[in-house]
């Protein structure tokens, strides 16, 4: 069961620096979505967000105000998730990580011909103006949806690498896989994420077949 946000129980806490319960409550939905993507477990995600919110209130005085509140709070959440993952038992077996993606060969065959060249129409297209896209609500909605559509284990490794900033070595150690496997899984995740973004947000030009 999820607990009520701690912030509602301590409404009077807060500082002049801008850390207050209302501000934290408004970030809660984003934090939860964030944590769920990484942990793939709603209850643990709730717990992490709860802990991060409590920590933010407890250490409100250390918020210097030279980053946005959101950036500061997300840094706290990120550290909580990292701690949690480091404490957690290895929960993913090697075989399930590598076998995660049974349709991988099929996918490669739809992208590349037998000589390893892009099939016609599958060549990556230039993406329009990335800086502008990063300011677009629609872009981020597509991006999150694409992350959520990654197979669970590929997503976990990819998020550990790109979101939590673990080095490959540490990911291998934690998940008990080889560096080679780790790179293969990351490559698969990137190929999928790239195709998903291009198909749902990229250039809208018709692709000649």
């Amino acid at each position: 069961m999820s607990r009520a946000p701690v912030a509602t129980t301590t409404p009077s806490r807060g500082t002049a620096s801008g850390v207050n319960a209302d501000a934290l409550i408004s970030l809660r939905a984003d934090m939860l979505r964030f944590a769920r993507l990484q942990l793939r477990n709603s209850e643990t995600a709730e717990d992490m967000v709860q802990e991060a919110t409590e920590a933010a209130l407890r250490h409100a005085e250390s918020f210097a105000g030279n980053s946005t509140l959101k950036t500061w709070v997300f840094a706290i959440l990120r550290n909580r998730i990292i701690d949690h993952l480091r404490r957690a038992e290895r929960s993913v077996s090697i075989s399930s990580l590598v076998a995660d993606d049974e349709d991988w060969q099929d996918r490669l065959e739809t992208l590349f011909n037998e000589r390893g060249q892009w099939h016609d129409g599958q060549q990556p297209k230039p993406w329009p103006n990335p800086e502008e896209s990063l300011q677009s609500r629609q872009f981020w909605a597509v991006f999150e949806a694409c992350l959520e559509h990654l197979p669970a284990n590929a997503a976990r490794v990819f998020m550990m690498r790109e979101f939590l900033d673990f080095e490959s070595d540490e990911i291998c150690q934690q998940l008990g896989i080889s560096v080679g496997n780790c790179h293969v899984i990351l490559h698969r995740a990137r190929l999928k994420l790239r195709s998903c973004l291009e198909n749902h947000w990229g250039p809208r030009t018709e692709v000649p077949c």
Partner: protein
Amino acid sequence: MLSCKEVTTLCSQEMERPLHWREKILLRLHVMMCSGCTNFRLHMKTLRQTMHMYASGQAVKSDPEPDVKD
């Protein structure tokens, strides 16, 4: 000469470790002549940049969930 399939693997590895000089040369030779792989390589960098923004909570708040099937 590397195939596009091999080059995409190198583009991903490039995000993980420094490439050997031989890999660098083969990669450069290929992307000089292949716009698909040139774009792919750029996209890998854009993905990392995007994830960094996302991780620091800089994503523009997105309420509607688009229907994405992949």
